[in-house]
């Protein structure tokens, strides 16, 4: 693979890792290079990004590399966050709400597992907004709190009961391959 290709791949890897950062070891695994060589590539990228994408920068913390916005544009990022945006629930809160509504009652740890990130704040927000409430404790070590949706949740989304939530993962029934196979088989038998 050419050096150029390594650079492109690293751009993509750094991007998808986002705030979590990319571990040198993992990057090396993907590129099939030694960690030393990979680090070399990452440092090269760090340099070239300065000219090519001045709005972003590559930061290095020990063996972890992270793509972040450049210091110079910080005021604009803040302006975006504070901008007069329509009052809406954050992505985090919405995801968490979806998970709770389809899996209630559910513990926070289970939610974290599904989301892959801590959801404490999101759960708190939802409780604040009275969309979610506590619902006893699970029979598990530490007896963690269970959460469920509230009446206000139904009211807000204008559904009369939880059964009215669109079925999760309900694929329209496709005549299965099994059926088709059966069909063939019988046809053959007939002949």
């Amino acid at each position, binding site marked *: 693979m050419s050096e150029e290709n390594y650079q492109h791949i690293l751009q993509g890897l750094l991007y998808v890792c986002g705030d979590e950062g990319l571990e040198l070891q993992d990057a090396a695994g993907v590129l099939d290079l030694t960690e030393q060589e990979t680090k070399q590539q990452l440092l090269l990228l760090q340099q070239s990004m300065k000219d090519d994408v001045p709005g972003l920068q590559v930061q290095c913390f020990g063996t972890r590399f992270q793509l972040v916005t450049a210091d110079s544009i910080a005021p604009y990022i803040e302006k975006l966050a504070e901008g007069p945006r329509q009052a809406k*629930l954050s992505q985090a809160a919405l995801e968490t709400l979806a998970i709770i509504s389809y899996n209630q009652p559910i513990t926070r740890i289970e939610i974290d597992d599904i989301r892959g990130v801590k959801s404490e704040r999101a759960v708190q927000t939802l409780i604040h*907004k009275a969309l979610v409430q506590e619902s006893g404790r699970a029979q598990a070590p530490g007896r963690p709190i269970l959460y469920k949706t509230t009446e*206000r949740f139904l009211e807000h989304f204008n559904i009369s009961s939880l059964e009215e939530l669109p079925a999760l993962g309900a694929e329209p029934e496709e005549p299965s391959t099994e059926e088709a196979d059966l069909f*063939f088989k019988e046809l053959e038998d007939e*002949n």
Partner: protein
Amino acid sequence: MERYSVQIDTFQGPLDLLLHLIQQAEVDIYNIPVAEITEQYLHYVQTMQELELDIASEYLVMAATLLEIKSQMLLPGEEDPGEDAFVEEEDPRQELMSRLVEYKKYKEAAVELREKEQEGAGRYAKGSSMDEEAIEEKYAAAVPENLSLFDMLDAYQKLKERVRYHTPKETKIKGGEVTIEDRMTSILSFLEDKQNGITFIELFPSGERSHMVVSFLAVLELMKHKQITCVQEENFEEIMVYQTEEELVGE
């Protein structure tokens, strides 16, 4: 029966089936040989019935429509072909033709959508880093007016589509290297002390695709060599897998 044993695209309905028959007969959609197509259509529906495949009532409605068109076409023209001969007589097939043409357009559009779907499949994005939760807290108890069920579903879909960096990769690679022979051996030893057999599904401990395929091929191979026996008491019952008795293996 030969002509029915062509590949069965699982049909999306009577129109889909008709399109298939028309295409197969290599006839023009604007000039359907109704008698021939009707016969084939009925045969199809009949076979499906015999197989007790669940036939939507739409198929039967279409069968009736076809028969009606067929009989109309058999009726002799009413007037003498006089001066009025050029007044176009309504073709009894007209309505069906336009339905077929209309449906075909969308069937084709669906194919293009599928291509576009695949095109975008390899593009990944990170999750948002916006700290919206802080703003959210400012509004405390208020729920945004315009929040809909749809927003929640949208968020959930995004979650499902997000790249998960957390999952360690090592296990996956290990799974891929199992050969059919390896799997045959391990299935046999797994069965060795299981007199009562095991369920078919137990042979697929890994959800990983390649491992499942290898396992399946291994089962087929073992069956071929009569080293294992698979029994299914009834349709849709659990398939049980047994190790074949020693003496039978020798034969």
